[in-house]
């Protein structure tokens, strides 16, 4: 066990401790506790920086289910390190901020439990090497995000937002799982590292392109790319610390991580380039365009996040050209695009985190986030204003803030991309800088809106519930740390480039030999280059359009609400609900006989069908054995009691007759020398008879079933076929040899499991996983019975409060 495994496990361990110990620690302290956990993890991770930047890769493997190739392998390389640092770093800042943000009366231990769960899941995503383990953590981030969005679950909007994000991201996750399985099919391994080594082998497979598309679907839904972005604005119903953490700094970047991680595998495919770059660019434009019309500050930030994620995505797409072209001096410009992607990822986390916290402060202190009610806050909240100004200007791409540097690199990449005469880029490539420039103008406008509409102008105190005042110091610490980073990265970008970004580049371009040359030195001043002119024109056009905002805002009316993606999604949900309702009431009749018919039909089709298909139905009664007298008596008892049940008129007779049948079966087991089964059958039969007798007085008298004759004939047919199938299968398996024989258990049980009782060694050793799950199922069934009865006893409580 090395430390890096514990980095994944620690959040889970502490998440488990919170529900147990929260009663003994004061409410506020849980927040400190979580902050401390993530801070410790962050510091632990920083100790890896020297080793990772030397090109070292820290792995750890635990064989989990080796027979299926599922191993818990953690893999800490440059790319994982960037994300892990973000997750734990922003995590501790958000933890600190949330202590002051959330009121003491909330169910804080739920909140922090989910938050730790999320942190662990996210670390699991970026650190696992095994595809299926990654998938498990990936879905866990969706689940914990669902819980966090629905934290104020008494509000309808929170529940709706949580459901929406869950549905979209999980749907993408499932398609990603299909992609992973296809990847496994092609490469024969679940380890990402091994797949990357075998990339030449799998590129010619027919499954290659479908796999690529399926995996991208997972990445796009998670990273809120067009047209899946619609869940992100609704997820803003979550408490602001959650929005800052999950929906801007970490979870939504899981898709970016996935794209970066799989670039070595798929990067040389034209479809990959066009999908990632195209979707990214369009999302960049669409997000920034829609952000301008928002009146809720948080919704505005949500759309801005969508657009910035699109920017990072498109940069990664442009970086993949280098994989296609191979390593040379000319491809350096494309590797710089990938470099800029990771750089902007970090920058975005810093300034967007600060901006979200700023909005949280405004919401917390003024009770509104609506820019129509805000204005002139600069003189009341100078510290908050500083955060907003620095964050927004960095997002808009102005110096001296870190956003400027990565934005310039983005422009440079878009300008150079059509130099590559691949993927018909020399024609369409000319569009890329144009879209990027237009999107940047809109970005500039909404940044001005954030600062201008909130902090300048007149105070509309008649629209405010509270008198504006500065936030408590505790809420200001975290955003201030972030904006110090925003400025700090601008002045010392190469420190970041050297130690953090370069190792990440090595993970994206594993086949390139000299990564040192691929990582550019970042310059704040790079002469009057085309990209600088682009920025200058963005500023001019942005200010002009911001001034004239009220004249051209009409264009948003062109897109009516009726045709929006949201309406489409809602209609889809309503439709699927009504369809499934109509379908379900067809077969869920509430009649036990019907359910038996389904079970028997499935059995007949699958088991009977298989035996017919394999042509192994045989009638070969055991000949050389004579039946003893008591065996005949037992058979007669069983037959008589079974037939008697059919004609019994009262329930008590049925109970007794079925007990007789059960006990006679137990005696059969004794006769056939199966003491385990006999014991189990005897005890189960006794317990279930007791259960029957306890329930007895609650049950109504048996009614005469009035069924149409056709149904009776159908049931008779099914039951006769069922009986015949079971009988014949019983005979057939005696001589059937196509399945694996179980006799090796007879040999193995003593040598491998050290037990003489074969039944138990199978249950406890060879198939222990089954047994464990059965125990869990039994427990859940017991809890189900308990809750159903207790809820009914409390007067049919309609709401499960």
């Amino acid at each position, binding site marked *: 066990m090395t430390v890096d495994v514990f980095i994944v496990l620690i959040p889970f361990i502490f998440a488990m401790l919170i529900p147990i110990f929260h009663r003994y620690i004061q409410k506020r302290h849980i927040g400190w506790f979580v902050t401390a956990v993530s801070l410790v993890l962050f510091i632990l991770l920083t100790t890896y920086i020297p080793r990772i930047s030397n090109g070292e890769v820290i792995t750890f493997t635990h064989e989990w289910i080796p027979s299926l190739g599922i191993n818990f392998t953690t893999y800490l390389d440059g790319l994982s390190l960037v994300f892990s640092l973000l997750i734990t770093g922003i995590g501790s800042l958000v933890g600190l901020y949330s202590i002051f943000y959330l009121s003491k009366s909330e169910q804080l231990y739920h909140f922090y439990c989910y938050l730790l769960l999320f942190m662990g899941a996210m670390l699991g995503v970026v650190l696992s090497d095994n595809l299926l383990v990654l998938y498990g953590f990936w879905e866990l981030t969706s689940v914990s995000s669902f819980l966090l969005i629905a934290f104020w679950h008494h509000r309808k909007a929170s529940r709706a937002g949580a459901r929406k994000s869950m549905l979209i991201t999980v749907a993408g996750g499932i398609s990603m799982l299909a992609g992973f399985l296809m990847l496994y099919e092609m490469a024969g391994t679940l380890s990402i590292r091994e797949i990357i080594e075998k990339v030449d082998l799998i590129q010619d497979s027919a499954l290659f392109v479908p796999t690529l598309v399926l995996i991208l679907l997972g990445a796009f839904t998670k990273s809120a790319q067009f047209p899946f972005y619609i869940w992100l604005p609704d997820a803003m119903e979550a408490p602001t610390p959650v929005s800052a953490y999950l929906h801007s700094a970490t979870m939504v970047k899981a898709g970016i991580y996935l794209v970066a991680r799989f670039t070595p595998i798929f990067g040389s495919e034209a479809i990959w380039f066009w999908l990632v770059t195209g979707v990214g660019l369009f999302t960049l434009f669409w997000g920034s365009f829609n952000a301008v019309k928002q009146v809720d500050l948080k919704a505005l930030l949500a759309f801005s996040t969508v657009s910035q994620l699109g920017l990072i995505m498109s940069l990664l797409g442009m970086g993949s050209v280098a994989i296609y072209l191979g390593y040379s001096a000319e491809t350096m410009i494309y590797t710089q695009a990938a470099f800029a992607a990771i750089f902007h990822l970090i920058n975005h986390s810093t300034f967007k985190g600060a901006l979200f916290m700023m909005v949280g402060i405004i919401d917390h202190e003024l009770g509104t986030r609506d820019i129509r009610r805000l204005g002139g806050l600069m003189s009341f909240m100078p510290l908050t204003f500083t955060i907003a100004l620095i964050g927004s200007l960095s997002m808009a791409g102005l110096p001296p803030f870190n956003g400027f540097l990565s934005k310039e690199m983005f422009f440079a990449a878009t300008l150079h991309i059509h130099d590559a005469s691949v993927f018909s880029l020399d024609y369409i490539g000319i569009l890329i800088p144009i879209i990027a420039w237009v999107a940047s103008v809109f970005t500039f406008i909404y940044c001005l809106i954030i600062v201008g509409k909130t902090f300048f102008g007149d105070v509309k105190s008649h629209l405010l519930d509270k008198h504006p005042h500065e936030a408590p110091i505790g809420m200001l610490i975290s955003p201030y740390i972030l904006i110090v980073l925003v400025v700090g990265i601008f002045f010392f970008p190469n420190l970041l480039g050297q130690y953090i970004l370069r190792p990440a580049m090595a993970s994206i371009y594993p086949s390139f030999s000299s990564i040192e040359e691929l990582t550019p030195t970042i310059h704040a001043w790079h002469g009057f280059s085309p990209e600088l002119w682009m920025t200058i024109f963005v500023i001019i056009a942005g200010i002009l359009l911001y001034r004239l905002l009220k004249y051209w805002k009409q264009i948003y009316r062109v897109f009516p609400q009726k045709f929006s993606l949201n309406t489409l999604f809602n209609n889809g949900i309503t439709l699927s609900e009504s369809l499934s309702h109509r379908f379900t009431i067809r077969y869920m009749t509430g009649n036990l006989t019907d359910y038996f018919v389904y079970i028997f039909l499935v059995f007949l089709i699958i088991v009977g069908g298989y035996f017919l298909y394999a042509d192994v139905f045989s009638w070969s009664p055991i000949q050389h054995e004579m039946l003893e007298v008591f065996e005949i008596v037992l058979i007669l008892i069983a037959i008589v009691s079974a037939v008697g049940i059919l004609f019994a008129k009262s329930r008590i007779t049925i109970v007794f007759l079925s007990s007789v049948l059960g006990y006679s079966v137990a005696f059969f087991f004794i006769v056939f020398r199966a003491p385990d089964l006999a014991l189990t059958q005897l005890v189960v039969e006794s*317990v279930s008879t007791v259960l029957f007798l306890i329930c007895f007085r609650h049950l109504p008298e048996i009614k005469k079933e009035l069924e149409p004759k056709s149904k009776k004939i159908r049931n008779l047919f099914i039951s006769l076929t069922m009986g015949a199938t079971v009988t014949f299968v019983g005979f057939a398996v005696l001589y059937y040899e196509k399945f694996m024989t179980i006799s090796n258990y007879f040999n193995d049980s003593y040598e491998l499991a*050290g037990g003489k009782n074969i039944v138990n060694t199978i249950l406890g050793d060879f198939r222990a996983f089954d047994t*464990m799950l059965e125990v869990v199922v039994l427990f859940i069934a017991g809890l189900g019975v308990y809750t159903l009865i207790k809820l009914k006893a409390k007067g049919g409580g309609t709401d499960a409060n």
Partner: protein
Amino acid sequence: MRINDVILRTVVKVVVFIILTLGVSLFFSGHHAPGGGFIGGLVLASGIILLYITYDIETVQRKMPVDFKKVAALGVLIAVGTGLLSIYFNFPFLSHTDGYYQFPFIGEKHLTTVTLFEAGVALTVIGTIVTMILSISEDE
């Protein structure tokens, strides 16, 4: 539920101990002879149920204040926990081991970690069955 049955009560006082002993013995003999966690648990559970049937629920609860839901939960935790323990020793999930050990007075004994797993199974079975029967019979 008040029953006034002297014979039943007198018999049960003795029989319950026999059943419970049998249950424990079945549980421990499981590795080499018929028995094991599931059957042992079932027998123990039926012994407890017999107590509940003979005396009323309140009396038994007073003398034996056990929350059987927690027993079941404990069982599940133990069963899953033994699996996790093997991860700690860097073996695949749910790996088990055994060995022969010399003890004072009772001589050489065969001990296995499967017994721990089976204990989890047994506790879950006891907890679940008693919970089910109690909740159904308590329902007035």
